[in-house]
């Protein structure tokens, strides 16, 4: 469980997050939704210790993010940021190999090699394993980074808009993989996403932010309703039902 208590964040005096207190359930796929500038990515980077925590407290499975050694947290949660510029010219399998860094700290073992193989297989990267990252398309790069995050072998996966560069087929494949990780692998996944219908179809829990505050939280059927969506995005949307889950019709 990730517990947030009174989390606040300011950048140059502007309030990005205000008094966010909530719990993200373990063993579930949580979708973080909200309009642009709602503070979704900021919240994720605070949990990921990418930005120093100004106010409040964040605990991941009981570990205080501000106090726990970074390496210990790296064995607990893996994080994939939005823009990933890499300085060196790496092959896909080398990048995925870095996911094992928290485990081996430079001295690789056969177990690390096996985990890398598995991650490459899980994300269908076999044919691309020896290609350089700068020879890949945006979506393929994205998958390589996801494989690295997966290879880290942590209980928690935090992904900031992983669907951005993916076409429909790959987006669905990714969500179905994440779903497998949660169902079969017992992992917990937090995903920042924009398309509410992906959240509707795959998420177990939704946390909706607006203007740096929690606007709504709960299972998809409770959060994805016409009044809440209107409050979030400021436009009228119809919510239908499709195979027992909400389907948001936002095409006017």
């Amino acid at each position: 469980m990730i517990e947030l208590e009174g989390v606040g964040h300011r950048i140059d005096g502007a309030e990005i997050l205000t008094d966010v207190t909530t719990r993200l359930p373990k063993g579930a796929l949580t979708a973080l939704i909200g309009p642009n500038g709602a503070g979704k990515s900021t919240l994720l980077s605070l949990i990921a210790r990418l930005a120093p925590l100004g106010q409040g407290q964040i605990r991941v499975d009981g570990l205080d993010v501000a106090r726990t050694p970074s390496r210990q947290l790296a064995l607990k949660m893996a994080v994939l940021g939005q823009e990933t510029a890499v300085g060196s010219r790496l092959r896909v399998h080398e990048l995925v190999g870095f996911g094992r860094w928290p485990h081996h700290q430079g001295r690789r073992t056969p177990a690390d090699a096996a985990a890398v193989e598995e991650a490459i297989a899980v994300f269908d990267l076999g044919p691309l394993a020896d290609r350089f990252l700068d020879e890949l398309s945006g979506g393929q790069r994205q998958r390589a980074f996801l494989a690295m995050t997966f290879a880290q072998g942590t209980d928690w996966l935090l992904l900031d808009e992983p669907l951005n560069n993916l076409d429909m087929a790959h987006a669905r494949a990714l969500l179905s993989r994440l779903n497998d990780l949660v169902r079969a692998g017992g992992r917990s996944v937090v995903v920042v996403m924009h398309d509410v219908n992906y959240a509707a179809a795959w998420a177990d829990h939704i946390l909706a932010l607006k203007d740096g505050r929690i606007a709504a939280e709960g299972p998809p059927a409770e959060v994805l309703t016409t009044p809440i969506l209107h409050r979030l995005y400021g436009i009228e949307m119809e919510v239908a039902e499709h195979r027992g889950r909400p389907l948001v019709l936002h095409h006017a």
Partner: protein
Amino acid sequence: MDRSLRWLVPICLVAAGLYLFWGLRAANWAFVLELRATRLAALTVVGASVGVATVLFQTVSTNRILTPSIMGFDALYVLMQTAGVAFLGISGFAALPGGPKFLLETAGLVAAALLLFGTLLGRGAQDLPRMILTGVIFGILFRSAAGFVGRLLDPNAYAVVQQASFATFSQVEPGLLPWAGLLALSAMGFALALAPRLDVLALGRRTSVPLGLAHDRLALLTLGLVAVLVASATALVGPIGFFGLIVASLAHALTERARHAALLPAAALSAVALLVGGQFLFERLLHLEGTLSIVVELAGGLFFLWLLMKGRIR
């Protein structure tokens, strides 16, 4: 071991052998050999320092076009020299013992580099264009400030300063060699010991922090090492602009994998091969002393333009 190192080592040895023994006459061989050995040692320290410093800097800034020199590290060193002459006078400046003065200047450069580039690379690190611009502007500022202070000096004092502000491979400061050599060697050894962590650092802050790397601390430490290496090289021969860019790109092109355990030695060795080989060519074969720095600048400048045109800057 990386394949590139297997043939870079012999090339360096051949270049060093040629430099030492070519045209050695029986008459005063001992004297000449000692002179050449000193210069060879200085060229080696300078080359290796510049090569390693550039690779380290590019790793910290996660890009392949910036070098400490473009960001004004060596200009800052020259500025400190000029300021020293201006405040203490030639005799006062020259009276300072070489070694401790060098250590003091190095410490000053490390402090300034951490302060300036540490904040640049710190939280706003991901904003590369802003960092390049700020760095370039600092470089120009330091150069012009050094020039300005130089203008205030009397001509004799200015001559001392001028010698420090251009690269001269044929004249090295023999007195500084042990100090600079020892300092540079320990900095390089330290960098090599950090190699696996530097591999992770090169992934950038957003990727390396979640992997549990103490990114900010390592970035500052690496910048400190860069400052020490630049100070050593600049103290021995003066600032050498684009040379680092050539060598770092060579190292990245020659090594099979982007691992610092191979990259750092490859950069050091190709720099030594280029410097020693180039100096042998220009000084002994073509008898054009003092031209190497110009050729290096020209080649490096053209290479920089080529990188720009190819859009290799990310």
